């Protein structure tokens, strides 16, 4: 087995476990077995990650700081999502559900590690396609089917746009390797950048769907509402993770030449996304719909960080790096969001989980052991999402807004734009607090009234909720190591190989191998060893 493939061992383990579960699931339909097996899969993938902490490999695969960070994050979130969803309503479909979840996580990890268009697209599709199945498996009613269908059609449309954009890139540069693309676009012979700009717009649109940025967000509220809490948790973190990693790889790093056109677009997207998300969330009565708009709004804050890293130029080190802010924000957002959905999925009446905000009325005062705990954890997540210190969400906001304020771009007047962006951002944070507080107010400030029960078999989700709450407080009180990790995630391997003659090279696909420090490998590609 050659080196690049070994690097992908965690992904391979996940896919193998998933395949095993798919096949064997036909014969043994006990739920617990597959959940435990999947957890084992995550664990062995984690072990593989630790053992294979290699440096750069070159070729289409990269294990730079960002890849490592995102892969760990995906593994951790995958385990949490698995426990959250350990009780899908259709008892019979557990193996399919668990298998699809594993594949989704493998897809995110693959996308994080790839620096080649085809592999990247594969990773993204490995996220999308199992997600369709998960959405169908979630619930068995008309609304759920509608949600799945809606997501399916819009998702393939987004994939098509993304692919179209990729083809432009290939047409402009003759390569599918991101480093080569970036380097050829930057070279003087590149000529007109119009193809690259068109590609940038298409890629932004395609990935905008994944992260639920505003003009591409319409599916989110309907789909979240139509599906289960566990699926909503998955939709609010996993595609975002994949989408942002792809955005960073393609738009921020490879399309460096089109950067001056890209950051204003991202900036506008950021403003629109957070403003629309927060404003719409104010009026929602359905919990998942509200949280869908909240997750849209949070994508807006993350786009601020992305715009910062685009505007400052890749590789510059300011006091606050937009890229590090992005990864820190994604982490704290994911912890609070998954925790919220996990806590909500514990509550319900019979088979039906809680739907509307009103159903949580008086939750902490209802007695019992579990319900007050759930209420306090939900309250904690709401404060964290609102960015109130000393909870995790505050540090995400600090990093994002501080990075926006420290922008010193090459363009005159660029700073003013980012100050405006930061002001819009913090005001949005204050608006957002209104609907988070509404949930808390409904829970804590009213007398109990037809309180939902704790559903059976939700021990895993309860554990996830408590774990996430502890994590949100721990990150809040000791943010140092998380900042450190996020800064490491901002290390992106982007060195292009030695300039290749455009004419002579012709169509050179992913065969320009790389070593750390930009040293040129010797044509290491898919098949060849290092």
């Amino acid at each position, binding site marked *: 087995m050659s080196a690049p493939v070994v690097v992908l061992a965690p992904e391979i383990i996940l896919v193998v476990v998933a395949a095993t579960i798919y096949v064997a699931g036909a014969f043994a339909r006990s739920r617990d077995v597959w959940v435990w097996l999947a957890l084992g899969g995550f664990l062995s993938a984690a072990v593989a990650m630790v053992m294979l902490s290699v440096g750069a490999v070159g070729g289409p695969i990269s294990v730079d700081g960002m890849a490592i960070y995102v892969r760990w994050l995906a593994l951790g979130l995958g385990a949490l999502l698995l426990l959250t969803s350990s009780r899908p309503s259709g008892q019979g479909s557990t193996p399919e559900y668990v298998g699809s979840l594993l594949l989704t996580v493998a897809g995110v990890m693959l996308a994080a590690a790839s620096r080649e268009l085809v592999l990247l697209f594969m990773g993204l599709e490995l996220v999308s396609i199992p997600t369709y199945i998960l959405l169908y498996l979630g619930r068995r009613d008309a609304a759920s089917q509608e949600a799945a269908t809606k997501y399916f059609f819009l998702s393939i449309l987004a994939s098509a746009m993304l692919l179209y954009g990729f083809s432009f890139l290939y047409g402009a540069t003759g390569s599918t390797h991101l480093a080569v693309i970036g380097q050829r676009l930057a070279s003087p012979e590149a000529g007109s950048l119009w193809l690259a700009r068109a590609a940038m717009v298409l890629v932004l649109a395609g990935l905008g769907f994944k992260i639920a940025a505003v003009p591409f967000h319409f599916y989110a509220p309907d789909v979240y509402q139509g599906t289960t809490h566990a699926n909503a948790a998955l939709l609010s973190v996993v595609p975002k993770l994949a989408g942002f990693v792809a955005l960073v790889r393609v738009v921020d790093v490879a399309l460096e030449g089109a950067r001056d056109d890209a950051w204003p677009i991202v900036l506008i997207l950021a403003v629109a996304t957070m403003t629309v998300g927060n404003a719409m969330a104010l009026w929602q009565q359905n919990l998942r719909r509200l949280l869908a708009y909240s997750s849209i709004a949070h994508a807006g804050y993350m786009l601020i960080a992305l715009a910062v890293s685009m505007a400052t130029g890749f590789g510059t080190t300011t006091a606050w790096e937009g890229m590090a802010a992005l990864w820190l924000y994604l982490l704290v957002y994911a912890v609070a969001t998954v925790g919220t959905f996990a806590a909500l999925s514990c509550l319900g009446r019979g088979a039906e989980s809680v739907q509307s905000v009103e159903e949580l009325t008086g939750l902490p005062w209802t007695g019992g052991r579990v319900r007050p705990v759930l209420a306090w954890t939900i309250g904690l997540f709401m404060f964290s999402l609102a960015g109130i210190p000393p909870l995790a969400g505050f540090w995400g906001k600090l990093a994002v*807004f501080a990075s926006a*304020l420290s922008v010193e771009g090459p363009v005159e007047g660029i700073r003013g734009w980012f100050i405006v962006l930061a002001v819009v951002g913090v005001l949005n944070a204050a608006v957002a*607090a*209104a609907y988070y*507080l509404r949930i808390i107010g409904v829970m804590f400030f*009213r007398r109990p009234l037809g309180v939902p029960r704790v559903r059976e078999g939700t021990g895993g989700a309860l554990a996830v909720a408590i774990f996430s709450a502890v994590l949100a407080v721990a990150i809040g009180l000791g*943010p140092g190591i998380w900042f450190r990790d996020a800064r490491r995630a901002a290390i992106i391997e982007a060195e292009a190989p030695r300039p290749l003659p455009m004419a002579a090279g012709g169509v050179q696909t992913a065969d320009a191998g790389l070593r750390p420090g930009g040293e040129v490998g010797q044509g290491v590609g898919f098949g060849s060893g290092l």
Partner: protein
Amino acid sequence: MTDPLRILLLGALAVPAIGAAVGPGRREWIRAAALVTTCVTLALVTVLVICFPGGARELAVTDVPWFGAAGGIDIRFSVGLDGLSVWLVGLTALLMVVAVLVSWEAIQEQASAYYRLLLLLETGMLGVFAARDIILFYVFFEFTLIPLFFLIGIWGSEQRRYAAVKFFLFTLAGSVLTFLSLVAIVVLNYEATGVLTFSIPRITASLAAHPIPEAAQLAIFLGLFAGFAIKVPLFPLHTWLPLAHVQAPTAGSVILAGVLLKVGTYGFVRFSLPLLPEATAICMPWLLWLSVAGIIYGALVALAQQDIKRLIAYSSVSHLGFCMLGVFALNRLGMQGGVLQMINHGLSTGGLFAMVGMLYERYHTRKIRDLGGLAHRTPVLAFFFVLFTLSSIGLPGLNGFAGEFLLLIGMFQRGWAEAGGRWAPHYQVISVLALTGVVLGAWYMLWLVQRVFFGPLREPGHHEDKGSQPEQAVRDLAAREVIALALPSVFIFWIGIHPAFFLNKMDATLSGITDRGMAAVDARGMAGQEEFPQQAPRRSIVGESGGEAGLPLQTTGWMDPSGAAFAAAGGHGHFGRVWPEAPSDRPTFLATTRTDP
């Protein structure tokens, strides 16, 4: 910096947090535990206050990296006390004991959650005042919102839900802009010096050498203003205050009025003045106008109130206007008066809110017209109410007078004795209007006392909702309640009789803060002087050393900041070595009381 006292400060911060972690139990146990916790904290803080030597040096400094080397960002867990924060820390610890004592019987439901939140709030408030790191300050600043939000929303009166949400959102909307401004200060300091530091003392020092450009200062000032002015609250931004104060449980009102409003003024004194002196100088007239508008407006609205708690809430608007007026007079006397008034307001208004709670527990009403002549029924309560009222309206001999007098002198000095450029007439009008506010303050408070405690006895006819014997006469204060009120009373007398003890210890810190603002104001005043050449040059009525100056009626300064100079006695004031320069031919209001040694 191995200051043994730092253990005490860390202890004071940690004890309430540990107390909050004590497990649930019966109400009696929980409240006893809370009382012990707050008393221990008060004891620790008392030692700190007594040990505070005065001078500009900080006490009990703990400065360790919070993020560790790992974070790459030097945000530190840095706490300490200086001549400004030590008093506010003391006030917080004192009022928390009061808060627990007034909650003793009032809180029946969910007592465990209640006292935990109260103790968490104490840690948060102590942290705000003790923080020496910008981010740490903001963390505590915002954190105080969470427990208070729950305290108002769960244990408040009828409109508590609306009040809690409005309070939280109003404060948050302002403080996010404050947050951005604080970060902007750090970033600009980093760009000017190349050092990324969050330490407040270090930034203060380095910004003195590398001032922020004026335009940026203004923008940052407005951002800070958004948060702090809402917290204070300054006049047009005060609308959350009456609602939150009235709806909060008694302890919540005590804490809110007594401590949390001071976070706003503290923020101005700690950040706006020393870090943004030019912007402060530019905004000073506007802020003074807003302050005096708040003084008059709050007093007039208080006059019209039918509800005792609302009346006292509006009196807070008026009194905080005085604090801001003193602070933004931007001279030593004004600043000392403003800061002293912060403490005074905490003591007197905190006590008044506590007593409104006691009245409510007895009569289940807060309406003024339902009550009358209570001095016959509850003489001890009436005694304390009159005492706190007199303190609040500034009776000489009690604390309110010391603060109000100093800050008004400061304001008059700003108006007449110092170069005001074209703003001088404004300052003069503001000074006079502020004096009117004092009169109005006496009016609404004394009228309240008269209606509620004197005249024929009038009580709400029946209180069956108590459920016990029909002929259960309303009892006067219990020992617990007397203690709760006696604690602040001690300081009401102490500050009133010997303010120098407090002023001496805060003087060095405060002059360090005012000096830059004064210099900036003078720079602008001088610039304006080209238009107004007849303006007298600025003279100090505070001499550099007053020890040798003859004091006509007494041997030691009554209010004697750093032994310097300001003594007032029986209408025969003498201001140390008053006029270093030759007195101008233009008489000032102070010149009439001047006697040459």
